[in-house]
């Protein structure tokens, strides 16, 4: 049987490395929106814990187990990123496949937060935006879901159709930050 060739959202655009920062594409096996029905958040969280080892996250939070992360993504909504959601979760929540809806970008490096500060208005300080914290915010003119995955790492979900613009804007920001870093420190 013939097969359709699959292409990732940022196919041909990444990776980029400029200065201390790298921008790569992540290709999780699945992204599933979990939206618990009325009165079901607790039951969903229990089932989620049993099935994937992670509890349903509170607002602006995420947690990860193995290669799978569950991340708050809005009112009564979280994304399960990694393993496909087990079917029995549908007893408690609407499950919607979002795997191909997002370009999943990963920004990593010493100046990653500096790069992101060119494009997003939220505070990225390690005190207020800690590992595992997540925010729905802007990346330039684009809406984004931004997750801190490490001391110097951020995962950024952007509409798939905007992958080229997002990559371009991050590339420009990375160049600017690297050019500044190359200057001698001020006297």
């Amino acid at each position, binding site marked *: *049987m*013939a*097969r*359709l*060739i*699959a*292409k*990732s*959202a940022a196919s041909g655009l990444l990776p980029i490395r400029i200065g201390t920062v790298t921008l790569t594409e992540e290709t999780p096996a699945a992204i599933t*929106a979990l*939206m*618990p*029905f*009325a009165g079901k958040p607790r039951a969903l969280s229990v089932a989620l814990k049993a099935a994937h080892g992670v509890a349903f996250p509170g607002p602006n939070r995420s947690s990860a187990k193995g290669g799978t992360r569950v991340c708050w993504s809005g*009112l*009564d*909504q979280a994304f399960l990123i990694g393993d496909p959601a087990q079917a029995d979760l549908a007893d408690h*929540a*609407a499950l*919607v*496949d*979002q*795997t*191909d*809806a*997002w370009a999943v970008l990963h920004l990593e490096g010493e100046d990653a937060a500096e790069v992101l*500060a*060119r494009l*997003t*208005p*939220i*505070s*990225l*300080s390690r*005190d*207020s935006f800690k590992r595992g914290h997540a925010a729905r915010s802007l990346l*330039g*003119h*684009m809406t984004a879901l931004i997750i801190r995955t490490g001391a110097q790492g951020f995962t950024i979900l952007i*509409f*798939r*159709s*905007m*992958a*080229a*613009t*997002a990559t371009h*804007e991050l590339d*420009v*920001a990375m*160049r*600017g930050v*690297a*050019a*500044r870093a*190359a*200057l001698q420190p*001020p*006297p």
Partner: protein
Amino acid sequence: MRIEGKGLIDRARPVRFRFDGVSYGGFEGDTVASALLANGVRLMGRSFKYHRPRGVLTAGSEEPNALMEIGTGAARTPNVRATMQEIYQGLEARSQNRVGPLHRDLLSINDLFPGALSAGFYYKTFMWPRAFWEKLYEPVIRRAAGLGALSGQPDPGRYEKAFAHCDLLVIGAGPTGLMAALTAARAGADVILADENARLGGRLLSETEEIDGRPAMQWVADMLDLLRDTGNVRIMARTTITGAYDGGTYGALERVGQHRPETPDLPLECFWRIHARQAVLAAGALERPLAFPMNDRPGIMLAGAVRTYLNRYGVAPGRDITLFACNDDAHRTALDLIEAGIRVAAVIDSRADATAQGDYRLLAGAQVIHSKGRRALREITVRHKGMQDTILTDCLAMSGGWNPSVHLTCHMNARPVWDDRIKGFVPAPGAVPGLTPAGACAGIYATHACLASGVEAAKTALKALGKSAPRVAVPAASDQTGAVQALWYVEGKGRAWLDFANDVTTKDIRLAARENFRSVEHMKRYTTQGMAPDQGKNSNIAALALLADTTGRGIAETGTTTYRPPYVPVSISAMAAGAGGKGFAPERFTTSHAATVAREAPMIEAELWYRPGYFPARGETTWRQSCDREVAMVRDAVGICDVSTLGKIDIQGPDAAAFLDFVYTNTFSTLKPGRVRYGLMLREDGHVMDDGTTARLSDTHFVMTTTTAAAGQVMTHLDFVHQALRPDLDVRFISVTEHWAQFAIAGPRSRDLLNSLLDTPIDGESWPFMACGPVSVHGVAGRLFRISFSGEHAYEIAVPARYGDALFRDLVARAETLGGGPYGMEALNVLRIEKGFITHAEIHGRVTAFDIGMERMISPGKDCIGKTAAMRAGLTGPEREQLVGLKPVGTVKQLTSGAHLFEPDAEPVRVNDLGYVTSVCFSPTLGTYLGLGFLKNGRARHGETVKHVDHLRGVETLCEVCDPVFFDAEGARVRG
């Protein structure tokens, strides 16, 4: 002239630059102004109106005179203050606002007729003839009076925007700001310390005083080490805080690359938006010039600026320096100059009781009443004890006291308060929430008091932040402020400038008052005082003091004009960083984008999406040829079109059907699983919001489609309805627009095509019109919908977006094998007009369901959003303009969208207007132009003739009014 052993310049690093084509030398750490002064260049520009020779007045961002163009060609930047621009190897600076060379500006002829150009001159003189204003007067005046010029080319420079966050923003890094930052940082607060200078230290870099037993400059260096050691302070040099806004947000302009040779990828400037939980304003104070006759010659500058050039840059701005002041503080200038070995010809102090603080000639109770020197100062005339003296001098340092820099405290509409003790305005209490003014900007001038004030302000901020304040010792420093007497202007013969930048003199202010422009806001607009790039920093207070005197009111009563952001000029390039060209908005690309562009299809923008207009075939030279072919292809064989841009919303839950019944006018709870229904959605005001099809995948699972244009609006609407109006409904939804790549397969051979690639073939019985369900495409799980926007037997197939590129290419290849191919938006538009299907050209926000003939879709058996409002009087009936079809019947065959409709014999004027045309096309199927439009009582007028008039394009066409469905009215083809 350089003074050996003085200044913070790096003498080991000489720098060469050019000014007006002449090469000069300076040192790293110099500004253009300091380096030119060191080279004996005093003439740096021409004034705005009179084109008078001007030199540098200040040493800071408030400079009104020494404005220059920096750079060459497209990259040049006009109106750069030479006092702020640091020199670098190869820098090109040019003077501006001149015709011919700077020292022989042809427009200096204006200076011979000062009376002609006084305040209000333009208003009074160029009243008539009226047409002359735009055509003659304004262009000539603009050319003569002005600042630097733009290159006229796109700016190739790189600019940047960024965000920053902190607990405490300290604005200004003088003694006050340094102490505030250290206090807060030691308490563990996250601090940003911003200062507009290249070096931190503020006035301490310009003065010869001691702090903590060390020279002030050394103390500053030590403080910076301490600040860095805390690890809590982000130091932002060359960064001017430009505005204070709501919620603790501050605008800031950072000079990143403007002070160095071009560096790849390095932005010239960065515009910051800083969010600070608390702020300390330590902006310092600006010295006031004195308005004495002929006070604008190159060589006359502020006393504090003279000390800055001397102490910070090691430059003596003259050889025989005089000082004119009304306060003790300014006498430091004479002491510093003498200490550096420079001759001080005389100190003129307006106060009769002034005493000399050192060994210099003091003229107490004296005033400077005139000056001479064609291109630079040569001599001054002094009135002293009833006598007039002439003193030869090449530099006059003047000081009228200091104005606290209250600007930022006024950005949220507070007015500053007059403080008679310091003869200046100070910030109103609580002017900007969370911002504490400290030090000189709060009217506290002595160094020791400033240091203490910085600590106190930081403690106030720390308390608000919930942090406990550390013990910080205030170092020993001078507690001298010295006496000051108010002296705003000096009477005498000749013009005395207040606003150097806009050439406003004391005479202009008096004229304004005489002509009854007595309010300070009226005076400002009449005279243009304070409206130049320095925003009146050098002139506002003196001008309003003179106005107060002239009108017999006090200064406090007269008040100030409104201080508005930005504090310094901000280039549009910085504020628009990243937004030029395609940066204006994100580009949204479908998965078929690459394949479409490869076929040289011209792309059009639909919202943010890029969609093909048409796919040109070999030999086709016009879009119409391609469009006609593509329409015929769909009607006769099969066409492929990417429809992924339509909004798709996945809706699930026990109450999903009830929710849809509430947002759609028609009923969806009765729709069977595996079927699709067309739906119409109203706004709460009863007008049409959007339309589209919704598929029922199971009892509790629907997929709604919206138009491309309204996808975001509908999603927002659904969120609002669920959260605010019907939280009782257990329903969940999310956009899946981006997850699915969806393609229309339209035409009589669509099923043949589908069956060539589906893993399980379909037939008409199991897949009738409006069926939907899962399918397998080359092993990929997809969805198939038998729906049609062309009136043909058609389907839409959806697969996860990763397969979109591959499936599109496959579909197109198969379509071509069957005599078809891809089609674009032009053909899509023709196909739908032939069928009378509406788009947002018709449902543009002002039409009702009645207007488009769909009032029967508002189900009588249930409530829905907009139902009641749609029944309001005036929203139905024969007075409404109703959707009709239009076909040309006269000799002219052209229809244009945007044309208006009239009775055939009526004059085509507004009062006779009967409606308008929304969509037109040439139909290759029917061989004629077709139009859709809205006509008053149109449904009752089928068969009648109306006149279509396009006033803009000059088209007048007689049309027959008909049903909007032009082709296959009975819908046989779609059921195929």
